[in-house]
């Protein structure tokens, strides 16, 4: 099963559900196809079933009867994790404190009875690739968080797994380090060309790393799509809210226009009497009241350095958030107009 060429194994989940011993349903039946070499991110709030899905792929949890897990054409459902030839990076890294960095990275090869000389070469390659050669003989408790992260990655890929599984690998790190390692992991996954499943609750991470994102909620898939799809064409209000900030406008449709408190926008794309549309804060701009069809009042202004965040009131049901890079002075309490880029307005399912 371990062939060096086989680096891009596809993964298929068929009707995988998970009910725990105490009766809680962690995952509704899910079907998921992951192409060879693809990086799929499972994204959602805690308790959404993303980790359970990953653990089913890994073989750490068995799906409820009827569910099947396939790697390529092999049905691996009955196999425990140790027989699936996966590489896994854990949220807590799960590095073995009784071993040095080198021994950790070599562990999977040792278990596979790879001869010592070859083992040493392969471990050396891994350490070099992750830029941690100088840490080789350190104990785990002598490493910083970022270093541990690299060791965990090196250890997982040293065995040349069929698929790489990452369970919130950056959550334990501080923000700036997270940004940097996010890029490194992305580059690594591309250069390896390995099939990867990445679990996170951080939408920024998901956007940066995923070829496709699976947004999950309460054990159900809310949407599957490319990062752009998910961002600009959220399937419902939950996805829209979970991924970045979104503004929603609910109103009545008549004569080709959707009207709500404060104004209206032209809308020809549907025929419902009442509907909800959404747009992102950066897809609208503040103009003079006379230049727009929507009028509101500035409730608050936050200067964020590279941009300014403006909260408008008296439009639709709730506050509207606009972000702009314009340098103008925005005065709280002044009446302004709101202009929304018509290409970036999408109808969504209003239920949350």
């Amino acid at each position, binding site marked *: 099963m371990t062939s060096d060429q086989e680096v891009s194994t596809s993964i298929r989940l068929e009707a995988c559900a998970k009910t725990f011993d105490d009766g809680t349903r962690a995952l509704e039946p899910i079907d998921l196809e992951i192409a060879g070499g693809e990086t799929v991110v499972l994204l959602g709030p805690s308790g959404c079933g993303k980790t359970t899905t990953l653990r089913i792929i890994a073989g750490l949890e068995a799906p409820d009867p009827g569910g099947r897990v396939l790697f390529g054409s092999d049905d691996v459902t009955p196999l425990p994790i*140790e027989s699936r030839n996966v590489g*896994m990076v854990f949220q807590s890294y799960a590095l*073995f404190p009784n071993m040095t960095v080198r021994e950790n990275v070599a562990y999977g090869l040792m278990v596979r009875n790879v001869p010592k000389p070859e083992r040493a070469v392969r471990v050396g390659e891994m350490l070099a690739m992750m830029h941690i050669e100088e840490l080789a003989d350190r104990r785990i408790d002598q490493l*910083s968080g970022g270093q541990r992260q690299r060791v965990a990655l090196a250890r997982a890929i040293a065995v040349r797994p069929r698929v790489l*599984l990452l369970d919130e690998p950056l959550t334990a790190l501080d923000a700036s380090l997270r940004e940097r390692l996010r890029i490194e992991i992305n580059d690594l996954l591309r250069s390896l060309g390995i099939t990867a499943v990445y679990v996170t609750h951080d939408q920024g991470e998901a956007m940066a790393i995923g070829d496709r994102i699976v947004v999950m909620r309460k054990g159900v898939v809310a949407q599957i799509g490319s990062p752009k799809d998910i961002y600009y064409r959220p399937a419902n209000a939950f996805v829209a809210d979970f991924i970045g900030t979104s503004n929603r406008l609910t109103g009545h449709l008549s004569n080709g226009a959707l009207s709500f408190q404060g104004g209206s926008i032209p809308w020809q794309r549907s025929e419902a009497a009442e509907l909800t549309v959404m747009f992102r804060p950066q897809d609208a701009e503040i103009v003079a009241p006379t230049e727009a069809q929507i009028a509101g009042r500035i409730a608050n202004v936050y200067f964020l350095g590279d941009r300014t965040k403006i909260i408008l009131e008296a439009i639709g049901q709730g506050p509207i958030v606009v972000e702009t890079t314009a340098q103008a002075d925005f005065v709280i309490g002044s009446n302004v107009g709101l202009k929304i880029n018509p290409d970036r307005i999408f109808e969504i399912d209003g239920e949350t």
Partner: protein
Amino acid sequence: MKRSRIFYVNLAFTLLVCAFLIVPIFLSMLAGVTVNFFQGIKSGLTLSWVIEVWSLYADTIFLSLLIAVACLICNLLIGVPAAYVLARKSGRVARMIEETLVLPIAIPGLAIALALIVTYGGIREFRLSWLFILVGHVLYTLPFMIRSVLAVLSSFDFRTLEEGAASLGAGFWKRFRTIIIPNCRAGILAGSLMVVTLSVGEFNLTWMLHTPLTKTLPVGLADSYASMRLEIGSAYTLVFLIMILPLLIALQLYGRPRAAKTTISDPE
């Protein structure tokens, strides 16, 4: 910093308690090397009592060591795996088993010894061998080994480490050998020290279980206190203290396993 009056009152009290615990030990050790304790130090110092103790009781010392080592091996073989299973399982059955396994702490040794005698005392070969004492010692020390290992297992997330090892291809026994056991070392060490110390000093059970041919050190001690002159009892106690001293010191150094510290020495 200037200390308050209460500090000194407390300190004096603490010193008094220390004296209560240490002075008798010191007296007893001194008596063991005094020519005549009744006359005091001025009668001179001698090692002849210690030598006499050795000729009279050397076999009890060796038997005690034999039993302690055998007891430790039994504890390692049956106690460590049991602790692992108890740490793995959180259900009611597991807790009941744990309760049962630590029961010998709560029940006086005398009662356990009587129970063993009334049940197995009839099997002559067994009753007369040192294995009879060993059984009692294993029952009595097992809770300490189990608790010590359990304490370490609860101080780190061994389940995730095991999952990590499994993801790298290690099967159950491989994981147990290469991950669980090495990471429990501190607890196993602390438990082992406790087991050996307790076994060497065990009297309550042993007094009931011993035969004239299977006398352990504490049994010999009781014997000498009852029938020998004070100096011999003292010298024997001295021998016992010297034997147990390294164990007690090691116990103070390694006896309190702490959770592995996660020191981050080289932040990026």
